[in-house]
């Protein structure tokens, strides 16, 4: 149990997928303009990522094994695309508003490198099924946390007086860099 807790904290804070691994920057910059969108995107990504980590771990252990390792990336992408398709239908049915707000970013979860990166990291670190699940959920929660924090900051930046050359994406990039520096403060919390 302690092990799982450690994985969660490590992935959310110490090895945050966006801030220290620099994965999943596309939705990080794209959907962080408004807080509600960020929350919706975070929830969708969490769902997809947790499910994808679990399923890809099962596939890797039981279907691929040692001799079919070269199919890993291929099969993971297929599985992720399937799960995203399912999520899309599910959200369209349950929350049309969220579906419209997420728009193009929902199918883009398929090509989100964080979503493919975490299952591959799982394999690399030889996690078992439960560990993979927690690793995926932690990574997604970390992604959500950073996305929401960043969206809140960007909402304030809208109102702030920013020098003209820095307006828009440039100041967002600077902010992201500073945030990444701040997250480095967690390094060493857990080995």
């Amino acid at each position, binding site marked *: 149990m302690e092990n799982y807790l450690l994985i969660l904290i490590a992935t959310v804070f110490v090895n945050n997928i966006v801030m220290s691994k620099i994965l999943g920057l596309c939705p990080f910059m794209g959907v962080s303009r408004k807080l509600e969108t960020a929350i919706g995107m975070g929830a969708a990504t969490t769902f997809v990522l947790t499910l994808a980590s679990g399923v890809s771990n099962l596939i890797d252990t039981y279907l691929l094994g040692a001799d079919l390792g070269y199919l890993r990336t291929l099969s993971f992408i297929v*599985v992720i695309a399937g799960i995203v398709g399912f999520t899309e*239908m599910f959200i369209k*049915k349950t929350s049309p508003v969220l579906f419209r707000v997420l728009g193009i970013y929902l199918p883009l979860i398929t090509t989100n490198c964080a979503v493919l990166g975490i299952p591959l990291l799982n394999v690399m670190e030889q996690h078992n099924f439960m560990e993979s699940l927690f690793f995926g959920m932690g990574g997604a929660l970390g992604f959500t946390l950073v996305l929401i924090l960043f969206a809140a900051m960007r909402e304030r930046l809208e109102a702030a007086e920013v020098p003209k050359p820095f307006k828009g994406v440039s100041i967002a990039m600077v902010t992201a860099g500073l945030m990444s520096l701040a997250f480095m403060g967690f390094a060493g919390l857990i080995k």
Partner: protein
Amino acid sequence: MLSAILVMAGIGLVLGAVLGWASIKYRVEDDPLVEKIDAILPQTQCGQCGFPGCKPYAEAIARGEADINKCPPGGEDGVKRLAELLGVDPKPLGEGLEPKPKSVAVIDDNTCIGCTLCIQACPVDAIVGAAKQLHVIVADQCTGCELCLPPCPVDCIHMEVVKEGVATWKWRYPVHAIRRVA
């Protein structure tokens, strides 16, 4: 090799089954009419129709709350196609919806023959010149009404769009919809 093919085929089959089941289970009844109207609209999302985008405008048309002639980017052609789809008479674009960028008339020095016809047509006296002399348009006075274009016998006047700049920028007029009261 065979096992690799089998594994990928298996994954594909399972995912296909799950997605197929989900598409039946989570089917959303989209109004087909809205989709058809939306397909005709130009998807510029410009908001000139008074709705926040093409889809909301399409939904309003489908509900019968909006007229079909409110889409300037779609033009007359778009109105016609909407009219065909909905089985109503096409009508001209709504008043004031024809978008035209602010422009001024410019006389081509080389073709102008000095006939003074455009001077007589100009409602704001923005054209200076005399018979058999080159005419010039005072850009500051020109309202861009285009009344001088038809009389010119040599077609030497053309309209030039005024770019927005420090010198030409003006506060926008507040736009209010005018409604007839009883």
